[in-house]
């Protein structure tokens, strides 16, 4: 008779089998990482540029520069560009984040040469057409109105503003008046100054001939020349905030605080504590607030890492009348992490799950590239993840308790609600 009560034997290993990248450089010195893996005939080329919100002259410039880039070149209009990529089965996208802009080109290997050529034209000869700018603005303004109807958006905005201040690139929002004030010249100037790759990652079925082609083509882009800007966060004094949204059925909660960078010696402890608190489906917050009380569809705690700052954030949407109970339970869980050692079994499950999911992340060449991107951009040693796994593996409940007080005191958390 089969014993269904006893779990099968299992093993745990601490491997982190990252694909060894081949490193080269563009003409101006920008590093290029080639990450070869996978069976499918596809490639992903990612360019990281210092063209994020951090370096923009006014709110919206980074976003609009990114989105307008592929809307016209000296010889092609937006339709010719879009259908050019589509015909090749390629996909081209530019997004601006808080610190960086990222240009991504997905291509099937056999069309790499023409796809790359078109991408280069878009990157080096954009015309930022006025009429396309006007259309993007009107779409943006409409989407902004729709976002303002979402309690999740309102709460997140208010939280970041409280944490970093309304003028800081991590805290400010792009308001309608910013959008109206944007001029084509702002975008042209921003592009000239900041659309210079600082890192290139190529992943997928990368053959030798692709490598040379990519190096030759991207070497035609300008190199980095300027130091980046400086900004100081100016947190708002109030620790609690509420955004009233009439007629909403649910309240969105955002609870968090600033934290430490990946390179900090306490970072592994922060990661594991966060994982146990709210970083996965079996976490305390999920168990308590979703699985025992049914107050929410989901509650998560996560670490948000930017280039110059980091914050911890707990987020959930709850029924309006349950707002106070949910908040109270979150505070209790924060208190418990700071005052009691994590029981051995719970710690073991959290630890194994964290290590296993980090290992399982590496199931595509693109995922390998993402890990390498993080290590390079945040100036981490190339064995960062391997070491993180080692440290998480040997961390004890008393190590964690000793550090919890520094990062999880409930009085240091900002509490924002919208609804």
């Amino acid at each position, binding site marked *: 008779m*089969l014993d*269904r*009560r006893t*779990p*099968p*034997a*299992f*093993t*745990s290993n601490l*491997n982190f*089998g990252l694909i060894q990248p081949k490193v080269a450089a563009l003409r101006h010195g920008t590093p290029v990482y080639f990450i070869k*893996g*996978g*069976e*499918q005939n*596809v490639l992903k080329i990612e360019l990281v540029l210092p063209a994020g919100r951090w370096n923009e002259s006014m709110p919206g410039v980074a976003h609009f520069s990114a989105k307008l880039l592929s809307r016209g070149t000296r010889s092609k209009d*937006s*339709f010719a560009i*879009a259908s050019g990529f*589509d*015909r*090749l*089965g*390629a996909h081209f996208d530019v997004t601006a984040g808080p610190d960086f802009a990222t240009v991504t080109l*997905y291509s*099937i290997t056999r069309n790499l040469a023409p796809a790359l050529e078109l991408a280069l034209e878009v990157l080096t000869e954009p015309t930022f057409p006025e009429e396309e700018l006007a*259309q993007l603005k*009107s*779409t943006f303004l*409409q989407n902004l109105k*729709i976002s*303002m*109807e979402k309690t999740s958006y309102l709460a997140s905005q208010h939280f970041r503003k409280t944490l970093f201040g309304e003028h800081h690139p991590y805290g400010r929002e792009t308001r309608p008046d910013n959008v109206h004030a944007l001029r084509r010249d702002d975008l042209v100037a921003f592009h000239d100054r900041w659309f210079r790759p600082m890192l290139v990652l190529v992943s*997928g079925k990368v053959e030798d001939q692709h490598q040379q082609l990519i190096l030759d083509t991207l070497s035609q882009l300008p190199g980095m020349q300027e130091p980046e800007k400086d900004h100081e966060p100016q947190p708002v004094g109030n620790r609690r905030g509420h955004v009233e949204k009439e007629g*909403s*059925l*649910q309240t969105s909660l955002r609870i968090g605080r600033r934290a430490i960078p990946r390179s900090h010696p306490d970072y592994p402890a922060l990661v594991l504590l966060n994982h146990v608190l709210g970083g996965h*489906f*079996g976490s305390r917050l999920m168990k308590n607030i*979703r*699985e*025992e*009380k*049914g107050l*929410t*569809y989901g509650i998560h705690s996560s670490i948000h890492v930017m280039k110059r700052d980091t914050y911890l954030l707990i987020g959930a949407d*709850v029924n309006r009348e349950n707002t106070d109970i949910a908040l109270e339970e979150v505070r209790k869980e924060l208190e418990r992490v700071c005052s009691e050692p994590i029981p051995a079994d719970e710690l*073991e*499950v*959290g630890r*194994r*799950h964290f290590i*296993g999911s980090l*290992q*399982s992340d*590496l*199931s*595509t*060449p*693109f995922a390998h590239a993402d890990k390498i991107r993080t290590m390079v951009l945040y100036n981490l040693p190339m064995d960062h993840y391997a070491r993180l796994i080692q440290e998480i593996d040997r961390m004890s409940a008393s190590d964690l308790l000793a550090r919890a007080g520094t990062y999880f005191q409930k009085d240091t958390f900002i509490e924002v609600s919208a609804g």
Partner: protein
Amino acid sequence: MIRYEAFTLDNGLRVIVHEDPTVEIAVMNILYDVGSRDEQPDKTGFAHLFEHLMFGGSANIPSYDEPLQRVGGESNAFTNTDVTNYYLTVPAANIETGFWLESDRMLSLSFDPEVLEVQRKVVIEEFKQNYLNQPYGDVWLKLRPLVYEVHPYQWATIGKDVSHIANATLDQVKDFFYRYYVPSNAILVVAGKVTVPQVRSLTEKWFGPIPSGNPPHRSLPSEPVQQKAKFAEYTADVPAAAFYQAFHMPGRFDDDFYAVDLMSDALGRGPSSRLYQQLVRKNELFTSISTHTTGSIDPGMLVISGRIKPGVTLEEAHEAVQAIVTDIARKGLEEEELERVKAQAESSLEFAEVEVLNRAINLAFATLSGDTSIVNQEAERIARVNADDIRRVASGVLRESNSTVMYYRSRRAQSEALKDAS
């Protein structure tokens, strides 16, 4: 090309193995052939609620998630109109834990009343979070019953109404389980760093002893051919008016599915599509517009959805969409257009198969059609579609009598327009 081997256990469980030694993980995907189309009209949302209950403990294992997390694994699931699909990922050495967990919950659930009480609340919060507390969140709740008059696709997978979920009883849960969660109604795919003999022996060991049960018999009313254009309008507190148009189209496994899907792409996939070029870029009637197909097994929908630019009326916008739709219905697509959407579709397929979990899900879904090998024929079937196929399906699908239009008016935009006028 996805290589695989298939076999069937005596109890009727269909098993597919896909070896991929290049990854360090193993994935297990179990598809149960039951979706919201199998629900009673007065007990909707049940297949999805049930998916939540599957994580609430089984006959011999009080917690599903914790033992999986302990071996470094992760799992999730989704429910749609046609299927309920569960999947997990573990470091390859620990795949037996997956067999243990999945076979026990196929054998029997714990049927703990407390689990039902809590998950009922969780699903109601999910209903609110995704469908009621979002601008435009209720569009599908309104559009489906307009398009489908008799087929159960007339309700969304989340359910018609929160009350159906609130009223579910434990007896109904048990009936549902014993009816649908039997080996002969399931497809198991194991993929990644595993071998065929290993999977064969683990499957025999853990799933072999489960009684086969009776495969449920499905007999759903088929939706009659629509004879007359349909129209409805709503007014809601949203910032911008929105336009929706749906057409009945063939199901996922029909020979014409790919032709319609490509036509839908030419109409509204991305900025090179006709609708975007004409209505967002040239005429500036919409701020966004796109099309998609639902890809359901029974005849599905091709849906156009767009947001109207301030100052434009829904009537003007509708007329402009209709002109483009009518043009394609009459003339089909330009050769250049067809080649473009085919290149996009083939590339999307290639990219989707990069992830081993996607390959496993595709294998399970293909097996559901009765022929697993179709998983490797998609690219060829896309390549074979020609201009004549497009003309044939265009005149059938895009005819006006097959259309349902829904105006989603904005209370605010209307009052702002009135203010501007006065």
